[in-house]
Every structure is written in C-alpha cells, then in structure tokens.
C-alpha cells in the first residue's frame, strides 16, 4: 500500500463513517432537540399553569417521539439499525439537570435561577451534543435558544411574548429536523 492509497482509504472510510453516523443519529437527534426544547420553554413561560401551555409541553415531546419512531422505522427498512442508548442518555441527562436546577431555584427561593437555569442547561447540553456530533446546526439551535433566553430576561418579556418567541424557535427547529429527514431520505432512495 502506498501513501496515496493509504490516504484514500482513510478518507473513504471517514466518509462512510460520517454517512452512517448521520443516518443513525438522525431519528434520535429530533427527539433530543424537540423534547428538551419543550422543557426549556416550560421554565421560561407560564406554560405549566395554562391549558394550552401544558398541551404544548406534552405535544412537543410526543411530536418528537412520533418523528423519531418514523425515522427509526425508515432507517431499519433501508438497512441500518442503531441503538438509541447514547442519545437517550444525553436526553435524560439534560432533562435531569434542567429539572434539578429549576428545583434548586424553587427550593432556595431564587426565581430567576428557576426561570432561566433549565434553559441554560439545555443550551449547554446542545453545545455538548453539537461538539460530539460535529454538527454546526445543533450549535446554531443552541445559540438561538441562548439568544431567546437572554431576550426574554433582558427585555422582561411577558409570558405571551416569551411563548411566541419560543414557538418561533420551535417551528424553526421542527423545519430544520424535517429538512434533515427529507435530505436523508433523498440520499438513501
């Protein structure tokens, strides 16, 4: 094997690995992103005490679950089977930390911590995920959530205004996930 062949083999295997990683991660990323975004929204708005807000909080993860199930079944049908363990661990880790920070803020009478803490945990979780997955799109979602959080606190937005901002972000993420799944489908068919 000469140097050029070695370089070519390594580049080829890296390309194949990246393609498989993209296909494998696609269903689970939707679940992590959309599910934890709902949790961040719960703390940043009065969603927990309104009927429509609660519906959103439950509808978000459920919608993410439906997308994940669809993408998982599609991946299996085209021939790649993956374990959700790593992504489930990331999602559960983010949720536990977010709830813990919210709870600490509540117990120690620090309403600002209870309000923005969970969102900052989700932002940090997304950044870690972006670094692990080497995906700038996840980093972009993280920065967008950070910007929304800072805007809500800095401009002292009302719950309705905060909800509208978070709804917009949710919509953008949903569209990005949809395009990502669509791109993957075209690649595989």
């Amino acid at each position, binding site marked *: 094997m000469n140097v050029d062949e070695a370089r070519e083999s*390594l580049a080829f295997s890296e390309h194949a690995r990246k393609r*498989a990683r993209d296909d494998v991660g696609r269903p689970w990323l939707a679940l992590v992103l959309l599910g934890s975004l709902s949790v961040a929204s719960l703390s940043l708005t009065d969603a927990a005490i309104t009927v429509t807000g609660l519906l959103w909080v439950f509808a978000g993860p459920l919608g993410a679950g439906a997308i994940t199930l669809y993408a998982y079944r599609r991946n299996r049908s085209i021939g790649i089977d993956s374990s959700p363990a790593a992504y489930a661990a990331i999602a559960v880790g983010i949720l536990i930390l977010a709830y813990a920070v919210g709870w600490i803020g509540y117990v120690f009478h620090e309403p600002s911590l209870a309000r923005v803490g969970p969102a900052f945990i989700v932002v940090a979780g997304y950044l870690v995920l972006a670094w692990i997955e080497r995906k700038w799109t996840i980093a972009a979602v993280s920065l967008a959530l950070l910007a929304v959080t800072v805007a809500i606190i800095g401009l002292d937005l009302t719950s309705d205004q905060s909800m509208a901002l978070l709804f917009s972000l949710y919509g953008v993420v949903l569209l990005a996930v949809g395009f990502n799944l669509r791109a993957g489908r075209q690649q595989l068919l």
Partner: protein
Amino acid sequence: MTHPSSALDDTIHQRVRLGILAVLSESRRADFSYLKEVLEVTAGNLSQHLAILEEAGHIQIVKGFEDKRSRTWITVTRKGRTALASEVATMKALLEGIATIQRA
C-alpha cells in the same frame, strides 16, 4: 527493528473493508444493501470482502427473512472494532511520519 507498516493488518486496510468496518462501528448492525449503496460497490465485490472479514472474525453475518423478503444483517465483532481502531491509528501515524519526513 520492525518497520511501522508491519503493524498494518492486511485483512482490514483495503479500502472497501476499512469502509465496511467504519460503517458497522457506527451502528448496531447494517444490512447488505445499505453497505452496497453507501460504499458504492457491486454485490459480488461486497460479498467477497464480507467473506474475508467474516473469516477473520471481524464481522458476523446473519441471514434471515423480514416482511417476506430476505435480509442479510452484518454486525461488527469486538475483535473487528479493536482491529479497526488499531488500523486507523497505525495508518494515521504512518502518514504523519511520512509528512514529517517530507517537511524536514
């Protein structure tokens, strides 16, 4: 003193076989048609490479039926994962060494 290239594993460093192990290392299992499509090889060519890797104990092949169609699922073994990591590290070290000599 042995040459660093002697650490390379002949069953793995071939381009397609390295690609097969790379794909399998990212998933729980992949089927024959997925590998064929991702690696852009013919069925005959892929079968030959899979047979070599299976004989070396780097992968396991399970044939069966799902939804009334035959499917061949391929899984990387622990030995295969270790061999892939070692091979990639050796190749990168060799290329780095050559690059260093060329720069000097």
